[in-house]
C-alpha cells in the first residue's frame, strides 16, 4: 500500500505537484495519466526519493519513506524509465543482476534469478545473457529493463512511460506480458503514461493529473461512467466511451450459464466484450458460446446483452453536457 499525503513539490515559483492525496492498494496497477509537464514523473520519483517533496509525505505500508535511507529504499523498489537506461558496458545478465549484486546475493542465486527472468520475458538465456544492450532490439531492451527492475523481487514497481518508445504492435504484447507478470508476482505497480487507452487496458485505478493537481483517482469503469471534471471526460474520450466500457469486461465475467443457443459463435473466455462484439458483427451472428482455456463450455453471451452493457447512464440521453451537472 502506497499512500500519498498532501504531497507537494515546488521548483522556485512553480508548483509542479500540488497537494496530492490518494492511496494505492497493494497488488494493484495504478496508471498516472496526464499531459506532458503535468507532474507525473515528479510524483512517481517522489516514491523512491529521486525527488524530495517540498511538503507532505509518502508512506509505504504505513511507514514514512523519509525515514528510510534513499539507496536502501531504492533497492526495495523496482524502477524503469522511458529509454530504459541500460548500462551499455554491462551484458544483459550483468544489467539484470545489478540490484541483487548490490544486495550481496550469492552468485548462484543471482544466476538462477537472471535465467528465470530472461526466460519469463522470452529472452533465451543461452542466447541473450552475454549480449550487450546495443545488440538488442528496442523491444528486447524494454524487456531487459523490466527484468532488471524486477530482479530483486520488489513489492513495488515504478515505471515511467515504459512503452513510450515501442511501436504499436510490440507495445500491446509488452503490455500483456507486464500485466501477466504483475499478477503472477503480486507487485504493486505504479506506471506513468500519457496514453489513456493503455491506462484503461492495464490499470485497476487511474490517476488523472493536470497542472500538478490530481483531477480524479478511480477505477477505469467508474471514470468512464462518472468523470469528475471536464478534463477527465475529455481524456477518457467522448465518442468511443461505449467501446471502452466493453473493453473492460471479459467474456468470462459476462457469460450467462446454460447451453448456448444453436449457431452460437465459439470464442475464448479471455476475450473482451469489445472484441466479442466485433466478432459477432463480422460473422453476422446473434450469440456466442464462451469456451474456457481447457476447451470446456462456460456459458453464452447474446448480442443484445453486450449492447445493454454498452449503454451509458440514463441521464446521458440528453447528451454529454447534461451528464456533467
Amino acid at each position, binding site marked *: 500500500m502506497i499512500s500519498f499525503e498532501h504531497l507537494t513539490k515546488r521548483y522556485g515559483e512553480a508548483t509542479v505537484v500540488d497537494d496530492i492525496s490518494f492511496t494505492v492498494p497493494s497488488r494493484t496497477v495504478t496508471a498516472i495519466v496526464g499531459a506532458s509537464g503535468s507532474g507525473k514523473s515528479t510524483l512517481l520519483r517522489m516514491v523512491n526519493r529521486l525527488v524530495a517533496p517540498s511538503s507532505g509525505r509518502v508512506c509505504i505500508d504505513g511507514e514514512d519513506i523519509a525515514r528510510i535511507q534513499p539507496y536502501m529504499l531504492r533497492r526495495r523498489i523496482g524502477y524503469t*524509465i522511458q529509454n530504459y*537506461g541500460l548500462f*551499455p*558496458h554491462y551484458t544483459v545478465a550483468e544489467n539484470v543482476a*545489478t540490484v541483487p549484486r*548490490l544486495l550481496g546475493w550469492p552468485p548462484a542465486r543471482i544466476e538462477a534469478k537472471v535465467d528465470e527472468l530472461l526466460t519469463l520475458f522470452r529472452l533465451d538465456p543461452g542466447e541473450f545473457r552475454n549480449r550487450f544492450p546495443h545488440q538488442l532490439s528496442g523491444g528486447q531492451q524494454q524487456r531487459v529493463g523490466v527484468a532488471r527492475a524486477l530482479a530483486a523481487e520488489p513489492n513495488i514497481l515504478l515505471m515511467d512511460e515504459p512503452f513510450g518508445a515501442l511501436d504499436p504492435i510490440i507495445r500491446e504484447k509488452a503490455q500483456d506480458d507486464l500485466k501477466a507478470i504483475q499478477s503472477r508476482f503480486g507487485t504493486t505497480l505504479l506506471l506513468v503514461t500519457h496514453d489513456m487507452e493503455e491506462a484503461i487496458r492495464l490499470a485497476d485505478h487511474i490517476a488523472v493529473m493536470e497542472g500538478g493537481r490530481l483531477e480524479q483517482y478511480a477505477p477505469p469503469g467508474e471514470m468512464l461512467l462518472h468523470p469528475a471534471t471536464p478534463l477527465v471526460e475529455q481524456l477518457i474520450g467522448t465518442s468511443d466511451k461505449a467501446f471502452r466500457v466493453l473493453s473492460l469486461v471479459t467474456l468470462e465475467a459476462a457469460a450467462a450459464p446454460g447451453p448456448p443457443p444453436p449457431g452460437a459463435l465459439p470464442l475464448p473466455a479471455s476475450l473482451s466484450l469489445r472484441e466479442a462484439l466485433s466478432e459477432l458483427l463480422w460473422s453476422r451472428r446473434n450469440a456466442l458460446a464462451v469456451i474456457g482455456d481447457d476447451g470446456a463450455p462456460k456459458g453464452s453471451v447474446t448480442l443484445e446483452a453486450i449492447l445493454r452493457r454498452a449503454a451509458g447512464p440514463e441521464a446521458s440521453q440528453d447528451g454529454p453536457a447534461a451528464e456533467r451537472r
Partner: protein
Amino acid sequence: MTRGYLRPAAFSRLGFVVTGLLAAALAGPLVSFHANRILPGDPRSVFACLPPALAAGLVLILAAAMAAAFFGGGWPRLAMASLGIAALGIACGVAASRLTATGGSWSRVSPGMGFWLGLFGLVVLFADAAVRIRFSPRARLSLVFLAGLCLAGFFYSGIWRDVSVVREYDARAADFWREGGIHIMLAAGSLMVACLIGIPLGIGLKFSQALRAPILNLLNVIQTIPSIALFGMLIVPLSWLAAHLPALAKAGINGVGVAPAFLALVLYSLLPVTANTLIGLRGVPAPVLDAARGMGLTSLQRLGRVELPLALPVILTGVRLVLVQNLGLATVAALIGGGGFGVFVFQGIGQGAPDLILLGALPSVILALAAAVVMDALIALTARPAP
C-alpha cells in the same frame, strides 16, 4: 582484365603518390658516403652501391609495390609494403658494408634521400593497407608487437652494423639505453603523475561549477607556454627551493636536470587529462545515470561502476594525447640537462654530426608512433556503442 583498366574506380589515386616516391627512391641516392663522420656526404645510387642481383631484386619489389598501390586490395598492399620496407632495410645495410669495406674504417655510410623517400612511400602504403583491412584493436596491438620484433631482429642480425647510425650507437650503447630509460621515465612517469592528479581533479570539477572555469583556464594558459620557456621558468623556483631546502637538494632536485623537465611535462599533461575526465563524465547519458540512481547505487558506486567505465574511452583519448606529446617533448628536456634521447640530438647538433642527431630522433619518433597506435587500439577496445 581489360574491364579493370577501364573502370576508374579500380584505379587508386594513392598509386601516383606511392609510385612517385618509390621512383624517386630508385633514382635518388640510396646512401651517402662520408670519408669521416662529419664530412659532407657523397651520394650513391641503388645501382652504384649494390651488387647487380640485389639492385634488380629491389627494383622488382618496389615495382610490385607500385602496382599494388595502383590496383591491389588491402592485403596485397600490406604484403608489398612490408616486403618493400624489409628490402630497403637490407639494401641499405648491404650497401653500407660494401662501401665501408672499400672506404676504410673512418668512413661512414648513412641512409640517403632515396632511402628516406622510399621508406616514406612504403609507410604510406602500409598505413593505407591497414585502414583498408580494418584491423581489429587486438590485431593492431599484435601488429605493433610484430613490427617491434622485426625491428629488433634487423638490428641484432648485424646487417646494419656498418650503417652510420648504428656505428654511433656502438660507440655509446650504454648511454643510449640509459638515456632511453630516462626518456621513457620522463614521458610515462609524468603521465602517471598527471593521471593521479588530473583524474581526481576532473571528477572534482564535475561537482564544483564554481572551480571549473578558473582551473581549466589556468591549465589552458600553462599549455600555451612554449616548452623551452616553461623549462626555463621552472629553473628559478626549483633552484631557490634546492638552495633553501637541503633535503630536496640531497634528493637530487635542483634547478636543472630531471626535476624541472619532469615537472614541466606533468604541467603540460594536466589539461588534457583533467578536461577529458570532465568531458567523459559529463557525456554519460542521463537515462543511464537516472537508472543507476533509481536502482540504489550510492554516488561512489555510480562513479566506480558506471561513470568512470563509461568515461574511460574519453579519458584514454586524453592519455593518448599526453603520451604522444610527452614522448616528443621529452626530447627537449635534454636542453636543461634532463636527459633522454634529446641528449644525442643536441650533441649531434653541437658536433655537426647528423648521424648522432638521428640516433636521438629515430627512437623518439618510433616510440611516439608505437604509443599512438597502441593507445588507439586500447581506446577502441574500451569503447561501447550506445544502445
